[in-house]
């Protein structure tokens, strides 16, 4: 697809491109990923579709796909569709959905302002937006466990404004606490990619809209917003993927209350709390299948952008 004029001025001066040397550069990294990413994920499948030692209860992985036994998976799927785990999945989806809504409601105006409106304060604001990346996630959650104690600052402020009569017990399995925690935790991961997408929008298009008589609200709705949709989607996907696997935010902020349990908690429980690695491994696979569309979407858009920038 590259334009012919570029192709004709061949910078290599007609030398045949030899790429085997470069493959050698990539080899150690590729080998590492095969050993510590591909093989482990395959091991999850082997354990999920293997068997369990009847006496020791240890997993007997089935390495040969022809010997895979799907009975454990099918009984797990019964629990997911209509059983006790279905509720956990539903709760996980609700939490992630609400937290994403929070990220968009707060994050879009912020990203939009910094990318397109802030001129003098932009570099300072950018530094402040990046700052949470350098602060440990669990420290940011620790901060909330301080703030949300019964006698903590949040209750004090709410009571001072007379928005509440009694101090609220935020940290005892209260679902809004989880949604606030997830939003707070992941919003930096949402704002930055959205910022860079909004910043790349051609300003001349917006100016043209203004010149043709549209109000700034109309130009936003009819030009900026539609042009930002791919960036908004990518930012949303990269934010909710880790959220779906989160199990520490909710259990940290609600002292492990079963009322706010997410899929990740069940996975952790099967693998570490009780020794049921086969069930845990199967549940990981179910989660991955649920997330497959999102993962593929993000991979495809990233690779397309990569190809375009390297053209």
């Amino acid at each position, binding site marked *: 697809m590259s334009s012919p004029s570029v192709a004709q001025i061949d910078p290599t001066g007609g030398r045949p491109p030899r790429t085997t040397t470069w493959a050698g*550069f990539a080899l150690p990294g590729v080998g590492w990923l095969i050993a510590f990413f591909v093989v*482990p994920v395959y091991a999850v499948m082997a354990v999920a579709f293997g068997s369990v030692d009847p006496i020791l209860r240890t997993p007997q992985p089935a390495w040969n796909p022809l010997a895979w036994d799907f009975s454990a998976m099918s009984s797990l799927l019964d629990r997911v569709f209509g059983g006790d785990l279905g509720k956990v999945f539903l709760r996980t989806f609700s939490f992630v959905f609400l937290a994403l809504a929070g990220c968009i409601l707060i994050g879009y105006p*912020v990203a939009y302002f910094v990318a397109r409106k802030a001129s003098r304060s932009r570099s300072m604001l950018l530094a402040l937006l990046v700052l949470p990346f350098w602060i440990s996630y669990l420290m940011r959650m620790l901060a909330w466990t301080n703030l949300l104690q019964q006698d903590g600052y949040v209750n004090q402020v709410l009571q001072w404004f007379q928005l509440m009569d009694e101090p609220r017990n935020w940290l005892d399995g209260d679902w809004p606490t989880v949604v606030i925690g997830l939003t707070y935790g992941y919003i930096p991961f949402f704002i930055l990619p959205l910022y860079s997408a909004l910043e790349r929008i051609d300003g001349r298009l917006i100016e043209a809209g203004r010149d043709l008589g549209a109000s700034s609200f109309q130009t936003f709705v009819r030009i900026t917003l539609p042009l930002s949709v791919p960036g908004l989607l990518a930012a949303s996907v990269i934010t909710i993927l880790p959220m779906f696997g989160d199990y520490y935010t909710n259990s940290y902020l609600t002292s492990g209350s079963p009322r706010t349990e997410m899929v990740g908690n069940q996975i952790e429980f099967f693998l570490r709390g009780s020794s049921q690695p086969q069930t845990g491994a199967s549940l990981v696979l179910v989660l991955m299948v649920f997330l497959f569309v999102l993962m593929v979407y993000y991979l495809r858009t990233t690779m397309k952008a990569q190809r375009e920038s390297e053209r």
Partner: protein
Amino acid sequence: MRLFRSRHGRAKWLATITWLYVLWSLLPVLVAVRISLNSGKSRSTFQSPSFRWYWGDTTSSVWHDDTLHTAMWNTMKLAVLCMLIATPLGVAMAIGLQRWRGKVSTGANTLMLVPIVTPEIVFGVALFIVFTQVYTGLPGGITTQLLGHVTFTLSFVVVIIRGRLTAIGSQYEEAARDLGATKFQALRLVLLPMLGPAIFASLMVVFATSVDDFVISSFLSTGASTETVPIKIYSGARAGSTPALNALATVMLLVTLLAVALAGLVMRRMRTHGDQDASLAGLTV
């Protein structure tokens, strides 16, 4: 919608939301830092300032509690080793993937990107299973945690370096080749120095990611001696803890910010081209 129609395109309410967000994103952390300086046991209300939880308290301050020491030492060791392994591995991989053409290369490139979209819990479970079922000869704890951290951070390095390679283009190396440099001389004498800022950005990102990691460290932890700071913060809050946790978190925060500031200074010195902030480009993928 009057609000949108403020003159000169300056939207006051957008600015208000933005600054409120910045305040909201950082204020809780500042409160946590303040509580680390509390003289009392309370983790919610501040009594009076003291360094009790840093070194004053003879049993449970960061200085005197051995388990907190161990956690801090483990975290630092992991982060530094991870930096030293993941960065060179990732730089070589980025250069290789950029130039190696063909079907296999596309596959390798996809494989490199998959870890970025994989939820960490999948990493944690997969590594936990592989180290208990397949690579059983490896000593558990720090070694397996390190292998996990490198796997998790490798792709970030590749993405950051590739972005920079694309920005540099091939003309500098070709000029070097035309002036008689071999392929490897051009790489070593021209390309690598130009990659300097991006390499520093990678080091920073790898360090911060490793220090921050909870899931992988936790799944591969084999007991108290292999706990890291995030694990300590996580498990500490449940068992009626003291502001020593806040002090521990604050110390780690200062170490990270110091490292980032240092790397930022070095990068500023190295940067010769006015390209986009490499660290930002890396974070936004």
